[in-house]
Each structure stands twice: as structure tokens, then as C-alpha cells.
């Protein structure tokens, strides 16, 4: 019973945390864009326009539920659901802290503890291609089909370089388990932390580029390409169905940021300087070992959240700076540049790890 309630609690934390951040992210995207472009941005609804996403949701809910003629209803309605659920499922494996003690029981702060954690994430990240294909095909529109073609080939191509970059990290960590990865990154390399990104910088860069393509964000937002394909694969979606796609994009961004933080940037490992704060608080309140561990768990969560926030900011920053690729150039980048580099990087890292360990 305790395990079950703890499990439910963790699921709620992840769900509420992620879906609650989405409106804030939407607001931040708009305000951030306005800030970069010398505009003001939404500032009418609520303080600093913070209630704007809420107003948008109300608008979406009251819009007509519209299905285009000749659309395949089942797949048409399925697509936004898969789009939203796949990245949420992948988040189940991301640890958001080491462990906490509740009523004397040890609770590992991760929804699903599995040794094949990273493979599980890859599997669900791979599912993200399905809503694109389904939405494009089932809408029965030439523009959506073009968007689906672009989106699906893009996601599949970049998954390969992403997988290779991930593989090079698995060689370094020697484990599929996210907890092991984070604990491997706890030490320090001289004055910098022993993060995956410093051990394997090329892999981190390739992975970072690939997650832009995976989440369909600019400069890789060809599947939507609003000036060419009008709105791409979700052209025929309106109201809450469109909102589901919209939210899915942000959930996928959060998932991708959490993944790159865990793999390359120390995950929930506490940021430099936080050790001091933990000791200070524990001593001040005279916490025992249990209290200290719980305090540490809170700071670990803050560390992960701030790392995710940095990557979310980068997503926004890049989006409002760069123009869009063309489809064939995107494929060239994926297959002719990133793929060979990722492959060579994997070999180099493997040799490096072999010599380092022997």
C-alpha cells in the first residue's frame, strides 16, 4: 500500500510538474521572443500577462470540434493523444533525485526503476514519429501529407545520430540505468565537474542538435514550416486537438531537456555550491541523517529543474535567432555530417574508455 501510494505520488509530481510547466513555458516563449525582438509581448491578462496561457486554453476549449471531410476519424483523433502521451511516458524513467525517506521507508525518486532505462526513453522518443505520420495521413490534405513526410523522415534520421551519441555515453558509463549515470558524473575533473558533456563534448553537441530535430523546433521545424506548408502535419487540427499538439511540443522539449541534463550535465547531481547550503540548513534545523537526505533530495530536484530551465531557454533562444533549414539540407546535415561524426566519435570514445580502464 505504501509503495502504491508513493508510486502515485511520484506520478502526480511528474505529471503536474510537467503539464504545469507547459503554460509557464508558453508564456516564457512569448515574452522571451518579445524581449529578443524589442517588443512587449502579452501583458494584458494577469500580472505580466501570466494568465495569457489560461485565456488561450479557455479559447481552445470553446472552439468547435472540427473534423475535415474524408478524414479517418480514429487515426485523426489518435494522433494528438499519442503526441502528448509518448514524451510523458519517457519522463517516467528520468530520476528527479537520488532518494528520500518517507515514514522511515526509502523512496527512490524515479517513477519507473528499470535497468534498461535509457532504452525505454529511446523507445518512447521513437514513438514521437507516429503522431506526425498519423496526423498528416489521416487529415487527408496534401499539405499535411507533405508535412508528415518531412517530419517522419527527419525524426527517423536524427534518431540515428542521437542514438549513436547516446551509445558513446553508454560506453563511458557502462550502464543503462540513469541513476548509475548520474552517480558516475558526481566527481570532478580538476576544476570542472565530471559531467558527460566535458568527457564527451562532441557527443553532447550532436545529441543537443538532434533533440532540436526530434522536437520539431526551429531551425528544424520543417514538419510545420508555416510559410511553406501552412501548418504542416497539424494543419487540419483546431481547438483542443491543436492544443494537444501544442502542449506535446513543450512536453517533448521538457523531456528532451531532462534527458540531455541527465545524460550529459550531471542530471540531479547537485550544482557546485549547493553542498554548503545543504549543510547549513541541516545544521540550522539540527536534522538527522534522514532530514539531511531529504534536504539533499530537494536540492537535487532544484538542480535538475534549473538545468532543464537552461535548456528550455536555449530552445527559445535558438528558435528566435535562426532561419529554417530546407528539407534536403536537413537530410544532408543529418546523414552526411552528424552521422559520420557520431560514428567516429563512438569509436574514439570506445578506444579511449578501453585504454583508460586498462
Amino acid at each position: 500500500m505504501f509503495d502504491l501510494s508513493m508510486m502515485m505520488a511520484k506520478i502526480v509530481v511528474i505529471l503536474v510538474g510537467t503539464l504545469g510547466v507547459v503554460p509557464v513555458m508558453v508564456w516564457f516563449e512569448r515574452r522571451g521572443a518579445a524581449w529578443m525582438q524589442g517588443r512587449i509581448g502579452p501583458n494584458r491578462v494577469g500580472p505580466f500577462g501570466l494568465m495569457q496561457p489560461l485565456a488561450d486554453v479557455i479559447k481552445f476549449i470553446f472552439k468547435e470540434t472540427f473534423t475535415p471531410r474524408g478524414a479517418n476519424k480514429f487515426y485523426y483523433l489518435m494522433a494528438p493523444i499519442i503526441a502528448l502521451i509518448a514524451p510523458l511516458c519517457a519522463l517516467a524513467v528520468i530520476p528527479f533525485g537520488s532518494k528520500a525517506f518517507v515514514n522511515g521507508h526509502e523512496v527512490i525518486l524515479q517513477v519507473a526503476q528499470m535497468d534498461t532505462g535509457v532504452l525505454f526513453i529511446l523507445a518512447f522518443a521513437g514513438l514521437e514519429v507516429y503522431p506526425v505520420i498519423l496526423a498528416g495521413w489521416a487529415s487527408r490534405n496534401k499539405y499535411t501529407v507533405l508535412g508528415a513526410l518531412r517530419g517522419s523522415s527527419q525524426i527517423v534520421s536524427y534518431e540515428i545520430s542521437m542514438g549513436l551519441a547516446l551509445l558513446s555515453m553508454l560506453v563511458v558509463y557502462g550502464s543503462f540505468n540513469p541513476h548509475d549515470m548520474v552517480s558516475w558524473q558526481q566527481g570532478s575533473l580538476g576544476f570542472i565537474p565530471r559531467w558527460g558533456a566535458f568527457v564527451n563534448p562532441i557527443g553532447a553537441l550532436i545529441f543537443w542538435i538532434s533533440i532540436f530535430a526530434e522536437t520539431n523546433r526551429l531551425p528544424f521545424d520543417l514538419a510545420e514550416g508555416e510559410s511553406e506548408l501552412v501548418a504542416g502535419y497539424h494543419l487540419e487540427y483546431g481547438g483542443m486537438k491543436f492544443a494537444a499538439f501544442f502542449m506535446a511540443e513543450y512536453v517533448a522539449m521538457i523531456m528532451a531537456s531532462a534527458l540531455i541534463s541527465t545524460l550529459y550535465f550531471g542530471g540531479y547531481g547537485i550544482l557546485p555550491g549547493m553542498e554548503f547550503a545543504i549543510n547549513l540548513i541541516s545544521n540550522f534545523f539540527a536534522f538527522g541523517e534522514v532530514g539531511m537526505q531529504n534536504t539533499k533530495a530537494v536540492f537535487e530536484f532544484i538542480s535538475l529543474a534549473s538545468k532543464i530551465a537552461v535548456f528550455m531557454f536555449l530552445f527559445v533562444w535558438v528558435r528566435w535567432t535562426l532561419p529554417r533549414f530546407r528539407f534536403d539540407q536537413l537530410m544532408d546535415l543529418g546523414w552526411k555530417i552528424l552521422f559520420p561524426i557520431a560514428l567516429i566519435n563512438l569509436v574514439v570514445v570506445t578506444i579511449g574508455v578501453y585504454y583508460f580502464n586498462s
Partner: protein
Amino acid sequence: MSSFFNDKDSQQSNDFYNPNVLINLGPSHPAMHGTLRVMCRINGETIEDAACEIGYLHRAIEKLGEDKTYHQWMVYTDRLNYCSALNNNIAYAMAVENIMNITPTERCQYIRVICMELSRIIDHIICVAINALDLGAMTVFWLLYHWREEAYTMIESMCGMRLTTTYARIGGMSYDLPDNFSERLWKFCEEFPKALDEVEGLLTSNRIWIDRTKGVGVITKEDALKFSLTGPTLRASGIDHDLRRDRPYYMYPDLDFDVVVGSNGDVYDRYLVRLEEMKQSVRILQQCNKRIPNGPLWVDDKRVHIPDKLEVYTKMEVLIHHFKIFMEGIDVPKGEAFTCVEGPNGELGFYIVSRGGPKAWRMRVKSPSFMLFQGFEASIKGGKIPDAVAHLGSVNIIAGELDR
């Protein structure tokens, strides 16, 4: 799920499963500025064949020119290329003045040059900004649009309107410049080039931008001449031709500016040509601002001179004169004239045949967009859909001018 493959509609639309799919870009499409329509036969992303169609914004403006008096038709010139309304106003006023053998006063000519260069800047801003927007760089769009608004605010101070100005009058301008105009123009000329530098930093050496624009939508020298293209598009193809220098009008011979010429005729060159032309326009504006003389705004010609409002209210003869000009219109002598100026998009010409009286017998507009659009069809074939979008953005076809 079998219904998806067997439903009755799929029989009618077998093209859907054909590798050669027909797709409509426009008339209502975010990248088709205005209401242009391009029917494309695509294979994957490649456009194998294209057919352009015009006429979705046809308002019979030329015919209206034969039905309205010369002054009444001035407002219709605003609606030709609505991005550079001032330029159209002045070009039209110039055409009527040529039939009537009127030369505007020096102050009027300087004001007209300022107006034309301001509208050139605005038009180029729109072209570069929307081209960037179509290629996904939205920040460039907003950076430039801020300066477009500044320019419009200046125009508003001149004539009370922002978009549809109707500023020119035959033989003069409707208002003189406002008092603080010189300082405002000076400030604009100081600060606007900084925004251009910022845009250049964002785009000119940006790898993605270069990939998307270099070698895309190439119009060769021969093609440019064959399709009788004019303006920045022609110059980007490497032909050194600018009416401001080659067939000078107003104060242009006295002003110091360079004609910008590209070499490859691709989207990238057109972008660079437009950026540089904006800088040259700023140079012209600065020179005009220094040299603009005081003196009369209106020509001393009873046929066209619109009297001062104060005199209209106080003197009977002037009131009658004013009444005659506005109720009957000006009497243009018999004759015909084709007058063209270097508009922002190319050669903008007005052909007017007069058989006397207050209305034109034949009114014809030679618009640069029409030529640009006839060349468009040939140059997007074989390219990709995003290339067509990039190309269209870079030649700046304005539907109002195309269809008239």
C-alpha cells in the same frame, strides 16, 4: 480501418496517391503575399511544373483612371503598390505634369525625392523582412518592422496618413513639411543603418541563411532581360541599370549615390542588393536634408495651383478657382506621355493619353510586379517548394500592383 482506403471519395481523388501531385500555392497561402496563385505539379518536394495565375486582386484601377478626374485618381495610385504609396503618388503626378509641361519647384522636387527614398526604404524593409520571415527568421522581421513604423510615423507627420498617403498633387504637394521634420529625418538616418547592421549580423554570414538563399531562384542576365525585369531584381542579376542615374529626374543628377549591382541573380544577391540600396537611400536622404531650400512649394501656374485655404475663405475669386479645380478638375491639354521612375521594385511607369478635359482618355500603369511574376513561373520549375517561397519573397511581388 478499411474504410479509409475504400471510401467513395478516394475514387475521385486518385491524384492523391499519384507521385505527381497537383498542389495549389495560393491564392490564400501564408507565403503568397497578397493573392497570388501558383498551381504546382510536385514530385515529393520538387516542383516539376508550375502555372501562375493572376487576377485575384483585380479592381479595374486603370479603367477607373478614365472615369475619375486626375486628382481623384491619385488615391487609386496608393492602392497599386501599397508598400510604397508615396512613390506611386509622385510618379503619377510626374506623368500628368509632363503632359502639362509643368516643372515642380526646387523645394517640391527635394520633398519628392525624400518621399521616394523613404518609400524605397519601406518597400525594401518589407521585402527583406518578409523574406526572412518566410525562411523562419522572425526576429529579423520584427527588428526591421520597428523601423518601418518609424518611417511611417514620419510620413504621417508629412501628410496625415500612414499607408495610403495621397501626398502628391499635380504641381505641388498637399502639405509642406512639418517644422521638426529635418531633425526627425536626421535621427532616422543616424539610427536606421544600425538596425541594418544588426540584421546583417543575423543573416549575411549565417550558414543556414546562405544555404537557403545562395544559388536559389537564380535569374540569369539573359532571363532577366528576356522577361524585361527591372529594379533590384535586374541589378542583382548583374545588369547595371537604374533610372535614377540613367534617365534622371528631379534632383537625382545632383545627388551622390551608388547603383548597387549583384552578380549571381540568386535570392542571396537580391537580399544584399536591397540591403545596400537601403543604405544608399539613407545617403540620399541625408544629402536632401542638408540641401533642401526654402521657397515656394507650388508651381506658379493657375491651371493646377490649389489656392491657400486662408485665401479661399477670404477672397471670392480664389474661392471660385478652388471650386473649379475640385468640382471640374484640372484641364489637361491634348497629348500623351509615358513617364517612368525607378520604383522600389523596378520601373514604375504611367502612360496617359489625354484628349483634353479633366479626365484621361487612356490610363495605363506599367508595373514592375507584372514582369517579375511572369519570370517567376520559369524560375521555380525544378526547385523545391521552400525555394519557391524564398524566391517569391525576394522579388517582392505586390498583388495590388500586379493585378491593378
